[in-house]
């Protein structure tokens, strides 16, 4: 009985440590969370949703979700390698030729939104209206539009700068 209770005690202790570890992770990672509404338009269709991203010293991690909360794209940008890596892409966009365009376009979007380097010569057109920025890829007929999202959360009342 004593051994069983000791086992239970250890189990609860391990669970408690696990919960604490999760807490530490979540506070550590949230360096600078920025929220935007986004829209990707083609001639015939559009996809809209939210871009949520946090920036740390080395990386920018981002999730693009639709308004219902369904994940479309998860990506990470390495500042050292100056590369975008797509981690998860929703099935209907998960084709090699779409991923290729997305990676290039996202890299340029991050350059505009976060000031990350972009050394290649580019042909994107940038249109700014108020705090909304549109990035147009004429070659692929794609238009990306980002607007900072004003959240009313008690812990997140600062307006996010573009």
């Amino acid at each position, binding site marked *: 009985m004593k051994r069983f209770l000791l086992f239970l005690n250890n189990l609860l202790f391990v669970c408690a440590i696990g919960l604490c570890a999760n807490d530490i992770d979540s506070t550590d990672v949230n360096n600078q*969370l920025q929220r935007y509404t986004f829209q990707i338009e083609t001639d015939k269709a559009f996809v*809209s949703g939210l871009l949520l991203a946090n920036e740390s010293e080395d990386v920018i991690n981002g999730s693009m*979700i639709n308004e*219902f*909360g369904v994940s479309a794209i998860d990506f990470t940008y390495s500042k050292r390698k100056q590369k975008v890596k797509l981690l998860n892409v929703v*099935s209907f966009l998960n084709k090699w030729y779409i991923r290729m365009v997305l990676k290039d376009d996202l890299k340029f979007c991050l350059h505009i939104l976060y000031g990350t380097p972009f050394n290649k010569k580019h042909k994107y057109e940038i249109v700014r209206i108020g705090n909304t920025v549109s990035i147009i890829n004429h070659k692929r007929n794609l238009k990306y539009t980002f607007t900072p999202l004003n959240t009313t959360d008690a812990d997140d009342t600062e307006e996010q700068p573009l």
Partner: protein
Amino acid sequence: MKKIATIFCMLLCALSVMAAPLTAQQKQEVIGRINKTASGLKSMSCSFTQTKYLSLLSDEMISEGKMNYKQPNKLRWEYTTPYQYLFIFNGTKVYVGNESRKDVIDTNTNKVFKEVARIMMSTVTGTALSNSSDFSIDVADGNTQWQITLVPKKKEMKKMFSKIVLLFNKSNLMIAEINIYENNNDRTNIKLKNIKTNGVVNETLFAIPK
């Protein structure tokens, strides 16, 4: 002795919040009762709070809105804060619109939207439990609520969601919460509040805006 008592209490608490398993017959009974309530649902209006938990960012995104449903196939799902987004399904057409762009899709030519609207309605009302071609269903007893786990059967849905967990209040067999688990470890929780059933729902709410 005090330590032992404390551990025992903690264990009891942990066990009490865990969903208890049911027999196959009990599960069928619960599903039958929820189905009966769902099929008697003529209309439903509520507000909701949606919390998206993002695993990559270890953060969450909270949004709020309103929902209206009218039998047999009308749904209005509207986000009001911190962004505006409107989804209307009126039986033959789907309208999606935000502040800058609006689209109307004819569901006779675009079956995907019809399917999306159908699954949204069946999940919110509880009729998803009667359609065994979409999900495999499990039921657990969660104290004051029935916990229904829907695991997608169809390939396209499997690519997006690992499971959907619905919580129904035992008192009135109405849905209270929806949890959507995605394959990338993200989760979306939708809590329904101020639910009004079988009241008068204005038909204009389902009119496609021009």
